[in-house]
């Protein structure tokens, strides 16, 4: 048995920091078959998949070079394989359960998933499941991973699904949050098109709670509503100087670049972005990694990531940390910004930081960073990006008065994903707080089942 993975090709760091094309170049057919041949087909991995993809099943089909069939196998439970193959944290999910991983490197399940998804897109006409329409209207609020998945599952069951999206393009965080070098737009667009081909209608530029109220949706004939508005409220550090010019939330920075295509300003986009070196990015998650790497690609020579704990505690995926390091991002661990200092025109000039050490474990089990007295120091800063997390988007909770909300601002749901308002369901980051694409998808699926049961039990 081969313990080592088939190596996957990537753009070289010196090359890729000059473009926004995907870093990972994917397997060839031969490489995919070779990697699949390492699989024992034990099926342990399925336990680690939130949407229970038949992993041994699709890998078996790859071994037989039945790549299209393999894609269909995944799509039985996952309508977004090209996306999941790229952004799922497989190392803590399916691949963690791979027995080969105990002695060597786990099967590259994610890389195989994206291979078959891409293969199908390139080589075959996408096959749409046969649907028997029931003409029951369901509204979905938000077109991110939870909303799209719920829409796909409901469409398969025959429902007439309309997704309302507040931005001008669908995809939610897949569009505004995750940069193209990790998740190319064509992949997102192709998978959204697949869902549209199932009959799902997506109406952009509608902000539920403002453009339409809950009552409007009932009046317009929707029988059930699924809220999947995500964790879009950026957290700030609330330290002095945070509103100085040149300081962005990660959401603003990434939205400008990814959704509004600022990197093409001014030739192909009208939305500017300003990145002046040195750039600091505060935070330790995937969003922080994305921000550092976007800044680099926008031409910043010096990009520093500042994190208050150590590398071990970073929530970002290992692959993202590695890629960032390869691209020359500098890391300042055990460091906490305490103040931004500006010039006379209101532009950030310096970041005052304090050194930290790890103390006792906190509620999350991670050791709490505590400041070391009198250890303040200054980092020269021309651009700062605050990537310390996102909170649930408060717009829907504020505009649906009977909706029960937790102290954290998340929507409270029962085991069927139904909220305190009968017929209104919720899922994704608006229920869990900021989490992963795949967990949002899992809840989208669960909500689709919940909505189906609820509709069937409420038929007059």
């Amino acid at each position, binding site marked *: 048995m081969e313990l080592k993975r088939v190596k996957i090709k990537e753009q070289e760091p010196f090359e890729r920091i000059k473009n926004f094309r995907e870093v990972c170049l994917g397997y060839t057919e031969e490489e995919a078959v070779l990697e699949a041949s390492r699989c024992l087909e034990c099926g342990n991995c399925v336990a680690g998949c939130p949407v229970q993809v038949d992993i041994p099943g699709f890998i078996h089909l790859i071994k037989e070079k039945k790549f299209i069939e393999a894609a269909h196998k995944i799509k039985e439970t996952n309508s977004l394989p090209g996306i999941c193959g790229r952004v799922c944290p497989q190392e803590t999910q399916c691949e963690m359960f791979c027995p080969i991983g105990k002695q060597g490197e786990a099967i590259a399940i994610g890389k195989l998933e994206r291979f078959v998804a891409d293969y199908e897109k390139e080589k075959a006409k996408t096959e749409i499941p046969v649907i028997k329409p029931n003409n029951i209207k369901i509204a979905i609020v938000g077109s991110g991973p939870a909303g799209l998945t719920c829409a796909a599952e409901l469409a398969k069951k025959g429902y007439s699904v309309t997704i309302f999206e507040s931005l*001008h393009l669908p995809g939610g965080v897949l569009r505004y949050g995750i940069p193209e070098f990790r998740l190319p737009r064509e992949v997102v667009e192709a998978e959204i098109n697949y869902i549209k081909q199932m009959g799902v209608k997506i109406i*952009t*530029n509608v902000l539920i709670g403002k453009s*339409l109220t809950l009552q409007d949706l009932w009046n317009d004939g929707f029988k059930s509503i699924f809220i999947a508005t995500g964790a879009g409220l950026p957290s700030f550090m609330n330290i002095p100087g945070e509103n100085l010019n040149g300081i962005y939330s990660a959401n603003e920075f990434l939205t400008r670049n990814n959704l*509004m295509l600022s990197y093409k300003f001014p030739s192909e986009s009208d*939305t*500017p972005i*300003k990145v002046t070196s040195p750039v600091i990015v505060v935070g330790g998650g995937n969003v922080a990694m994305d921000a550092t790497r976007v800044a680099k690609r926008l031409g910043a020579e010096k990009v520093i990531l500042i994190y208050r704990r150590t590398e071990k505690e970073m929530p970002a995926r290992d692959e993202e940390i590695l890629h960032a390091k390869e691209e020359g991002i500098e890391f300042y661990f055990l460091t906490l910004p305490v103040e931004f200092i500006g010039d006379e025109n209101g532009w950030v000039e310096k970041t005052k930081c304090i050194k930290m050490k790890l103390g006792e474990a906190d509620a999350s089990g991670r050791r709490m960073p505590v400041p070391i007295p009198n250890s303040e120091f200054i980092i020269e800063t021309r651009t700062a990006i605050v990537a310390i997390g996102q909170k649930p988007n408060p717009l829907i909770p504020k505009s649906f008065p009977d909706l029960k909300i937790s102290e954290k601002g998340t929507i409270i749901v029962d085991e069927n994903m139904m909220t305190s308002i009968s017929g209104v369901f919720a899922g994704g980051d608006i229920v869990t707080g900021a989490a992963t694409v795949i967990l949002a998808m899992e809840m989208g699926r669960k909500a689709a089942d919940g909505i189906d049961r609820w509709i069937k039990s409420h038929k007059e």
Partner: protein
Amino acid sequence: MYEILIKQEIAPKIFRFVINAPYAARNAKSGQFVIIIPRKNGERIPLTIFDANDNEITIVFQVAGFSTNILSLFNVGDKLEAVLGPLGMPAEIESFGKVVCVGGGVGAAVLYPEIKALKQKGNTIYSIIGAREKSLVILENEIKEFSDKIFITTDDGSYGEKGLVIEPLKRILDSENIDRVIAIGPVIMMKAIAELTKKYNITTIVSLNPIMVDATGMCGACRVEVGGETKFACVDGPEFDAHLVNFDELIHRNNQFKDLERKVFNGT
């Protein structure tokens, strides 16, 4: 959707558009705004809703930079890339008593729907509109219709009284008991009015126009310091208590992309 139904240049470089935008029109209230993306890969421009009915919204805007210039080049029958709204909190329309409404430049257009709503609520309205020169005085007749008194100022004295809006405001405050002041216009104007009315201790409301991106509370580009706290103008505003706003910060923040914009604007 998003077709331009009427286009008028009501003053040099100030346009009135009526746009088919049913989702933005349906629940629109005075004080709220829309995001308009003129063309594919265009910028998201926040603009106050001047009027809304059935399936249509009306906006009044001035060419102030690169993207508003692009918008001004659209004609009747053209379709815009996107219109999203209504956004932000509606203006507070109550029976306050005597209200002075001050509109500077194109701010008069932002103010007009509020003047109308406040008058219909039974308030006594004193309106002050100011502009650089006569040709830029907009909506005089419309505002007059809902005002008990109207004052007009121009910087060069070519129409109304010569000087700034603050002069007639001061005279009113010195001679009568005023219950509320609403000031909408350039940030420096709003700042000066806030400083003045603070001395008289009169509640003053301003409508802020910071840089926005999504305008739904997701990015924080529009953050303003109000009463020592950071607020997002797009969802918490755009109207705030003028006496609590950090105007200097807003002036700085609005300059963030000026140099880039100037570069491309001069290039077109």
